[in-house]
């Protein structure tokens, strides 16, 4: 089933629309990523995170 709730990246309000009706801001997916206790790709995620924070 397709989920309809989104949230504005800017004003953080929830909406069903494609753009924020309050400020016109871009929307973000609100649901946290799935997690598996094995977390197979954790190592790569952490490497990527570090690269991102080092380059910024």
């Amino acid at each position, binding site marked *: 089933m397709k*989920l*309809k*709730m989104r949230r504005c990246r800017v004003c*953080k*309000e*929830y*909406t*069903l*629309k494609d753009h924020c*009706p309050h400020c016109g801001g871009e929307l973000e997916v*609100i*649901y*946290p*990523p*799935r*997690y598996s*206790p094995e*977390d197979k790709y*954790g190592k790569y*995620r*952490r490497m990527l*995170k570090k690269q991102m924070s080092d380059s910024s």
Partner: protein
Amino acid sequence: MAELLQKAYGETDPHYGSIPEERPLEEHLSKGIINLDKPSGPTSHEIDAWVKRILKLDKTGHGGTLDPRVTGVLPIGLDTATRSIQLLLEAPKEYVCLMRLHEDVGEAKIRDILGEFTGKIFQTPPMRSAVKRELRVRTIYYVNILEIDGQDALFRIGCEAGTYIRKYCHDIGEALGVGAHMAELRRTRVGDFQEDDTLKTLQDVTDAYHYWIEDGDEAPLRECVLPMERAASHLKKIVVRDSAIDAVCHGADLAAGGILQLSEGIKRKDTLAIMTLKGELVAAGEALATTTEIDQADKGIMVNIKKVFMEPGTYPMMWK
């Protein structure tokens, strides 16, 4: 702490206890709470177990169960702080809910019915819940309608602990006659835990732990864990003298002489958080008097201590 009334003056000895934000990391972890963004799928209990495993702790516990498919704010108490999470069970909650009606009734009717279902409402727990099915009264503090799109209504709802949102939607459907169900739900607040920078995913917590163990970097983990005192943020408070703390830790009721500061507006039977001058959570108890009465009293028991969170011996024993 905001605007406390000063009843008496006192100082705190830096040799005992610790300012919550300045605890060494190991202690911070064992007295910490994670403002976790629960993913869809696992039960709240499974989330506890995963956090316990990720951080290699002895104990964890969550504040206010969320159904498996519901996401959002799920505070997780770590080790010593596991008990303090009990304070959140009674705390007000906020959700963003997408309700779907089974027929079109028009926007005006949806607005009217949500208005009607605000304030004190009757609600029986759903059949499949563990709670006995009997009539209960719950307070809906506010319903802010965000959008209505045909048969879909998106709203933010602030409610008393123990309100079932799925049942709330179902009941509105029955009241309108057309039927309705909760299509999507996300919790956005439990007491003082909300959807802000402190809200972390299981991935965030996992990564923070690895950065600490593998690189010795404490910062990400500190960012993921809040002091357990946050579980009492929504409660009215009483700050006590150092000399009164240990007796309270042993379960003794709190007398007027030990009180230094207190919140405005305390009523009898309110749940109060007992705090140190350093801002540490000691215990929770039931108010036996109002703010004015407590402020004016020089003797007598003011708070009936119900739950103790601080280890006895943290502060020196000054009582007989």
